[in-house]
């Protein structure tokens, strides 16, 4: 049964119960402990809709509960896996960045990345490396400079590359 229809029936049913209880209490002085529900049970026929709202105990047995737990765990695991594989978790690349590069600038970008990847492979970065890269970096827009150097920046901050120079990294 649709819940809206059920809701509509609850009001009249309660009114009937209350009316019956009131009449019973008025005509037959009840014992001191008599309840309205008991009176209603004797004078008014029970309504199926009202019975449906009486709280009942859960009818899941242990096996069904265990099955339900398993389903919830699987759903949560699937949500976590989907979140970790979302596009925002992927590293940024020149291709999907918001800034655009000309073909010449893209070549410079790639050259910078080759040097950066080489430094990461060597696990060392020096003042000389920095000085050699600056003319190329100057040809890139600021966002591209940062993105080109970001893997090195991260590697140095993680302690995977030793910066032997002093001052700024880039």
């Amino acid at each position, binding site marked *: 049964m649709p819940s809206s229809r059920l809701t509509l029936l609850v009001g009249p049913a309660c009114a009937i119960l209350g009316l019956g209880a009131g009449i019973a209490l008025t005509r037959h002085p009840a014992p001191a402990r008599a309840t309205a529900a008991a009176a209603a049970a004797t004078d008014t026929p029970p309504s199926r809709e009202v019975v449906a709202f009486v709280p009942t105990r859960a009818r899941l047995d242990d096996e069904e509960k265990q099955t339900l737990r398993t389903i919830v765990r699987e759903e949560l695991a699937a949500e976590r896996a989907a979140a970790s594989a979302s596009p925002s978790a992927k590293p940024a690349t020149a291709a999907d960045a918001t800034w655009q590069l000309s073909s010449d600038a893209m070549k410079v970008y790639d050259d910078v990345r080759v040097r950066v990847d080489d430094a990461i492979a060597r696990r060392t970065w020096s003042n000389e490396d920095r000085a050699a890269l*600056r*003319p190329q*970096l*100057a040809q890139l827009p*600021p*966002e591209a*400079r*940062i993105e080109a*150097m*970001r893997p090195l*920046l*991260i590697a*140095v*901050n*993680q*302690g995977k590359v030793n*910066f032997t120079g*002093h*001052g*700024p*990294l*880039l």
Partner: protein
Amino acid sequence: MNRLPFGIAIFGIAGAACLAPSIALGGQVSSLTVFVGNNPDGSGYFEGSLAAARYSPDSVADIGCAVDALGTPPVQCWARSSGNQYGSCTTTSATAITAVSGLNAASGLLVAWDKTGTCTTIVVLNDSALLH
């Protein structure tokens, strides 16, 4: 003859009394030594004053920021502690450029960055206590 040395002594004591405050009371001095903390995921934090790094007894400590609109990222901040721990971050934030441009010999820096090496916090302290 006997009064001349006494007069000189009085003059000397008075002079010393006048000069003493200027020697002993130079204002509060604070040393913000360079500290660098790197997390395994690449994020981190550093703090320190330029003076503390410059006058560190070792030749390792270093701290600073660079503003460069041409050859490098607009703002880079870095620090190396006496223990040789190094951290660096970059940002294109206009407010960071303004803040970093105010660095001087009496400045201290507090900088934090995320795992991508992007500066998330840059605090520039300009405090006379850091000038020494």
